[in-house]
């Protein structure tokens, strides 16, 4: 907010000190003033990101010896992570679950976003708020409510039983990767709807009219105009779901069961029961690298695909 103090600048004179010169330079440079204003936010955020990640990387090259941490640099954790098949298996399962979840959530959210973008004319704001509202409420409680629904004696099983439709509880409902996918899709729907909605809303309606005037029917119009133009939103939505869900450990713990343990559960126990922080750091970094590589490849491939369509 120091941008309008310029009124107080003294007239230039030969005896001007270096301080007022600096000050004049500062006031003339928009970039400098902008960065001054930005600095508290940037410094806090940069510190709160760079410092922890530096420690994270350093820690992954250290080793746990009893209750102490040996700070000699070694690749032992990475060696161990590469050798033990359980880490790879859990990572692949996590990627598989999150990938399925991202695809399904985007598929189911697209028509919803499309409806609000094209067919809601009044009270659009209310619709947008309604679609995103659950997302802001407690993640833990939303996952927990699925445990209440899918449980062995949960709402679905006990409801069907009291209606006389089933004799024994359906076991596939809870404690399976399917339960994780359903729960995650519910929890992250807002992250899919919003980017898709924004990209649909941005489409110039006259392009659709032009397509219609040139003889395209509704399906051709959708496939040739709407869908290609909304792809950036679809890509953003799938990544916004895929990346954070790979690292989820609450959902697998509450509804996943033994077949639903994910890589993040393994990371979490390194900081709890197992108490091997360096191994936890190594696994966290490996997970980030794999997720990062997949995301970059995905973006690159979809850019190519969009270019080909265009």
């Amino acid at each position, binding site marked *: 907010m120091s941008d309008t103090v310029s009124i107080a600048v003294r007239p230039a004179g030969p005896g001007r000190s270096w301080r007022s010169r600096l000050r004049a330079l500062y006031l003339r440079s928009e970039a400098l003033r902008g960065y001054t204003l930005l600095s508290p936010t940037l410094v806090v955020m940069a510190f709160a990101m760079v410092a922890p990640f530096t420690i994270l990387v350093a820690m992954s090259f250290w080793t746990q010896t009893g209750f102490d941490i040996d700070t000699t640099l070694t690749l032992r954790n990475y060696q161990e992570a590469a050798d033990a098949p359980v880490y790879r298996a859990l990572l692949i399962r996590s990627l598989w679950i999150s990938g399925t979840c991202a695809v399904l959530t985007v598929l189911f959210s697209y028509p919803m976003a499309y409806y609000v973008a094209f067919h809601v004319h009044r009270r659009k704001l209310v619709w947008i708020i309604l679609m995103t509202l659950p997302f802001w409420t407690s993640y833990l409680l939303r996952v927990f409510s699925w445990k209440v629904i899918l449980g062995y004696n949960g709402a679905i099983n006990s409801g069907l039983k009291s209606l006389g439709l089933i004799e024994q509880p359906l076991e596939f409902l809870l404690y399976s990767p399917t339960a994780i996918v359903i729960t995650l899709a519910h929890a992250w729907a807002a992250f899919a709807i919003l980017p898709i909605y924004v990209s649909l809303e941005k489409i110039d309606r006259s392009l659709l009219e032009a397509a219609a005037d040139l003889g395209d029917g509704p399906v051709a119009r959708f496939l040739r105009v709407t869908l290609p133009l909304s792809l950036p939103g679809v890509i953003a939505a799938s990544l916004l779901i895929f990346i954070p869900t790979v690292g989820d450990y609450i959902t697998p713990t*509450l509804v996943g069961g033994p077949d639903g343990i994910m890589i993040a559960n393994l990371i979490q126990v390194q900081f709890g029961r197992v108490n091997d922080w360096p191994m936890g750091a190594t696994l966290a970094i490996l997970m980030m690298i794999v997720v990062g590589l997949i995301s970059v490849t995905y973006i690159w491939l979809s850019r190519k695909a969009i270019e080909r369509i265009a």
Partner: protein
Amino acid sequence: MKSATYIERLNRPLRTYAFLFLAFLYVPVLFLPLFSFNDSLYISFPLKAFTTKWYAQMFADQPMHAALMNSLKVGVATAVFATILGVFGAKAVTRYRIPGRKPVVFTIMLPLVIPGIIMGVALLMLVSRLGIPLSLYTVTLGHVLISVPFAMAILIARFEGFDKSMEEAAADLGDNAWWTFWRVTFPIVFPGILASLLLTFTISFDEFIMAFFLSGTDPTLPIYIWSQLRFPKKLPGVLALGSVILVVSFVVVFASQWLRGRGAARISDESSEP
């Protein structure tokens, strides 16, 4: 509207789908309040008698009160710090042509896409290497970090929405920087600030993963709930508590989103007037 006749005409199947989708979003959550009034230790159909005893039990629960106070403290502190940082950042990137604007905004928004567990364990390692004991302060640090992107996003939209010349006019008429901010900028961005305060408070209040790694002996409310989930006898009390939290969160978030949306609508109305 010509387009409404053949492109944007009512599509019944799509509308049905939209309502089903909303049901999918809301119905699961409604099971918590439903079973919280059920007079049974077990969460299952058929429902037994109506009762409010789980709510009475919850209100009498002293550790819950302590956890609630902890969450309120952390939430208020997070909301204030994140919003202040958001105001600085949003004003800087919208009011000044600064080189490297894109990477800067990207850096600040990064916590949005990093899995929570990674941020959590990385911060845990940092504070433990620095010898800082885990406390509500470390939880607040984590919460500010994940809340700033949301505060920035709300406030950038708000700052972009209004005319820079109003600030310039105030400065030309002799207001200094602080007066310009208080008399011109602040009233205009106020709905955005309020929305940001409410939303970042809710994020912190409901946040679990950062608090899981960064809290010491004082639990926040979600951590307290997590610790209760292990005891089947405590489940109905958790349902009651969860229902209260859900209702309060819904009201606060609806208020914040409504303020934000209405504020944006009013700005565009004003600017479109001749």
